[in-house]
Each structure stands twice: as C-alpha cells, then as structure tokens.
C-alpha cells in the first residue's frame, strides 16, 4: 500500500528520503537523460521524442554539473497553502509583457499606479539596443492591488501596443501537480531509519 502511495506521490526531489547529504546526488536516483545535460529529476522523463542536438556541451561530461543543481538546499519562501500566486518577500509581484520598446517608467507608473502604490518596478532594457526589452515587473504591497491591476490591465494598450499582465510567482509547478504537497507536507521531515549495526 505504501508503495502505491509513493508511486502517486512521486516528486523528483522528494524521491530519495534517505539522502540527507546534499552533495550526494552524483549517484542519481532519478534517471539521467542519455544526453549529458544537467536536467535533473523528472524533467528527463517528460522529454518527448528525439531532439536535434547541437553543441560541445554534449561531449564534455562534467560530474560537477549534475550535482550543482541537484542539491536539495535551495531556499524558498514557504507556500501558505494551496495553489495559486505566491507572495514575495514584501509584496505581490506581477509580470507585464508586450511592453512597447519606447515605454518609460513614467508610462508604467501612470498606467499601473491607480491600483495601489508601486513598491518596486523593474523595466529592463535590451542590452544590445537600449530599448525596453518588452517586460516589466511591478510590485504591490497588497494582494488586492495586484489582482486589480491584473484584471484591469491584461489586454490593455500602452503606446498603442497590447500588454498582457499576470502573476509572476506561484506556489506550485505549472503542470498543476502541486496539490500533493499540501497533503503530505510533513513528509520531508521524516527521520532516517536507524543505521544497521553489525
């Protein structure tokens, strides 16, 4: 019975409960893809069909590479229950795409300021052309403010160009498999089996 639950519950990083040693992932539990890449966990099993491959990276094998991103000790802000957008350290962050290349910060303040005070705004430039890259990240303090901005501005125009607006961060994977985390939240703290003593 336990194994059936394990099968349903499979999540790449939680697969090996015995392995508390973060650096020990060079002998992977998850199947290593035949292509020498650092795709860890279940990602390789979702690669459908053969891929056209290119590059020297397939020749060089670097054991380091596989262990660097396989470690479990990545900090994250805890999810406070349920799927959906995730709060950032001091507020709620939305992503705006389709931003006109000549837009300025003021244009965004004018368009988005009415929903609440903008705590943070990143309007990054294309490093080659100097024009706006095309996206903006805006932080509001309150969930309601961000939600209203999304509802009102998704599909709206700025400098005659249509923008789309959505949350930036979420509590769980985009494939919607996150529900399991809630049901088994204590799982990762299960203690090790005692060592055998001969």
């Amino acid at each position, binding site marked *: 019975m336990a194994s059936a639950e394990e099968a349903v519950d499979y999540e790449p990083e939680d697969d090996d409960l015995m392995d508390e040693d973060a650096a020990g992932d060079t002998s992977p539990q998850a199947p290593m893809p035949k292509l020498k*890449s650092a*795709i860890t966990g279940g990602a390789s099993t979702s690669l459908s069909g053969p891929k*056209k491959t290119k590059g*020297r990276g397939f020749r060089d094998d670097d054991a380091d590479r596989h262990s*660097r991103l396989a470690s479990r000790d990545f*900090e994250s802000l805890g999810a406070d229950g349920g799927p959906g957008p995730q709060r950032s350290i001091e507020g709620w962050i939305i992503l705006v795409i389709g931003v006109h290349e000549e837009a300025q910060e003021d244009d965004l303040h004018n368009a988005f300021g009415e929903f609440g005070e903008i705590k943070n705004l990143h309007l990054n430039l294309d490093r080659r052309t100097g024009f706006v*890259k095309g*996206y903006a990240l805006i932080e509001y303090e309150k969930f309601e403010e961000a939600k209203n901005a999304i509802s009102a501005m998704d599909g709206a125009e700025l400098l005659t160009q249509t923008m789309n607006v*959505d949350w930036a961060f979420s*509590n769980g994977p985009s494939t919607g498999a996150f529900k399991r985390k809630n049901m088994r939240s204590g799982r990762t703290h299960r203690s090790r089996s005692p060592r055998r003593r001969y």
Partner: protein
Amino acid sequence: MAAEEDGGEFYLRYYVGHKGKFGHEFLEFEFRPDGKLRYANNSNYKNDTMIRKEVFLTPAVLKECRRIISESEIMKEDDNNWPEPDRVGRQELEIVMGNEHISFTTSKIGSLVDVQSSKDPEGLRIFYYLVQDLKCFVFSLISLHFKIKPI
C-alpha cells in the same frame, strides 16, 4: 495551464564560473519544465558561502523567457567555432525548446572586443547579448522575490 501547451518543452540552464584562489566561484540558474527557477551563486571569497534560491514561476514568465530566446535566434547558432573554456573560466548555455536541444560551452567573454576577434563574431555576439538579457531577467526575478528593500 501546463507549460507544455505553449509549443513544447522548455528548459534553460546557464552557468558561468571558474576555479581559483577563492574556490569554485560560479553563477548558475535553471528554468525547469515545471516552472521552477533555481539560482545559485557561489564563492569562498572571504569565506563566503553558497547562495541558493528557488521559486516557481507562472506560465506567463516562462512564455516571456521563451520569447526572449526565440527572438535572439540562439537556437540557430553553433559553438564549434567559439573559444573553448579555459583557466580563466567557462560559460555553459543549455536550452531545450520544442524539439531542439542545444548545449554550448565557451570561455568567459570580457567584452565585445573578445567577440569581434573570435572566429564566429556573429554567433558569439548573439550569445553575448542573450546571456546579458537572461541575467537581467533572472536577477530581477530573484531580487524582487527575495530581497528586502533597505529603509
């Protein structure tokens, strides 16, 4: 809404680093197919330790990342004429988009002069700017999500 619906798989990994007096100093980030962004920055300079952060991105963010990559046309390039990684350092860029999988390695690029004087200035220039744009994107996401504003 599954990420796969937006035209196939998506995975991106970028690494830049070197090994030296202060250990293995590197920056690495990874956009995984399930939407998780992982970021790591390591140095032993002044006995500093590794920074590791991760957060789930919404499909909207992944879509924008894909757009940045397809507009750069990096998938059409090849690294066979790019400088090999050396003692000064190495960069790795691995991308899966649709049915194409690239995994490029090269040395560190100091400036456009290094690009211009290489055997494939056109391709290397695309790589050079794409890496900068990706770093901008990732640094914004990570700092906005994790960093507290002073005062």
